[in-house]
């Protein structure tokens, strides 16, 4: 199977262009479910025990018309659900050619297909999808604004703490994540990936 090797910068361009088209206001939290279901017309189908039985949070159907998602996430784990949706959206946007090359009609066949592909290739596709999901749900400009706000809030409150340290941003990610309706590690990774802690002005 041929796969695209996209750089982080390529993926960021794709993600921001997608957001400009489907959610130009960039208002938070990004309405990922509405974009996928209502705007793009992709079906979202909660599949019982998808994670428990198959170790998958979700997957995109071969015809790219349906996203199957673990029903526990769908019902109870909102932030995780949103990230999985964004991850599958990434495959929809970035990897159309890959989906044209494969054939599967059930979850079992999907798992077999995944196992049959070189793990490095699958890993690369998933890495691109993780980047895309992070950028879509936590857009850079909005993240920078939030981080600036956090700095203003804490610069006089936490003497002795290095506000450029990973430790501080790991802590601050809990607060920032609420604005984006994602889990804190998503924000922590985004801050590192965009080098915000080093570039932010005090």
């Amino acid at each position: 199977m041929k796969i695209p090797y996209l750089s982080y910068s390529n993926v960021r361009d794709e993600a921001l262009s997608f957001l400009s088209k489907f959610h130009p206001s960039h208002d938070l939290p990004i309405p990922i479910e509405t974009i996928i279901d209502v705007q793009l017309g992709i079906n979202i189908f909660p599949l019982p025990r998808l994670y428990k039985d198959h170790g998958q949070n979700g997957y995109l159907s071969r015809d790219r018309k349906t996203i199957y998602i673990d029903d526990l996430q769908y019902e109870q784990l909102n932030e995780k659900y949103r990230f999985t949706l964004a991850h599958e959206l990434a495959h929809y946007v970035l990897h159309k050619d890959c989906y044209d090359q494969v054939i599967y009609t059930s979850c079992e066949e999907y798992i077999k297909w995944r196992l049959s592909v070189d793990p490095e290739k699958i890993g690369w596709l998933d890495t691109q999808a993780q980047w895309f999901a992070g950028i879509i749900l936590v857009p850079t400009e909005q993240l920078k604004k939030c981080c600036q706000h956090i700095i203003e809030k804490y610069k006089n409150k936490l003497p002795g703490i290095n506000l450029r340290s990973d430790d501080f941003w790991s802590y601050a990610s809990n607060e920032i994540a609420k604005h984006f309706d994602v889990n804190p590690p998503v924000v922590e990774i985004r801050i590192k990936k965009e080098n915000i802690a080093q570039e932010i002005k005090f």
Partner: protein
Amino acid sequence: MKTMNSFGEFFSSKRRSLCLTLREFCRNNNFDPGNISKIERNLIPAPASKEKRLEYANALGIKEGTEEWLVFCDFAAASAGKIPDDIALDRELLGALPVLFRSIRNKDIDEEDLKQLINSIKKELR
């Protein structure tokens, strides 16, 4: 406007026109998203009971007796492989159905003739 060919397509299009995701729609109306998703993807037919159909129609903002209600019922009947109730209750129309079926099966009938036939039937129903 896109032509709709199935109950599922009609259903999902109506829901999306309300700007509701499947999850929101099901939460608001206490429906099972798994079932509704299957209906929307035509994996299962429309429900057989009129009560359930009415419940779905209400949730989609379709009022009983309107033109849209008729379309909803026609798609539902077709998806369930049945003849719509209003036609089934009309003995004259019911008697005319074999002619309709023969006409549809007639390979010589072109799209224009078929449209004309459908329009005549719709006119009869009004």
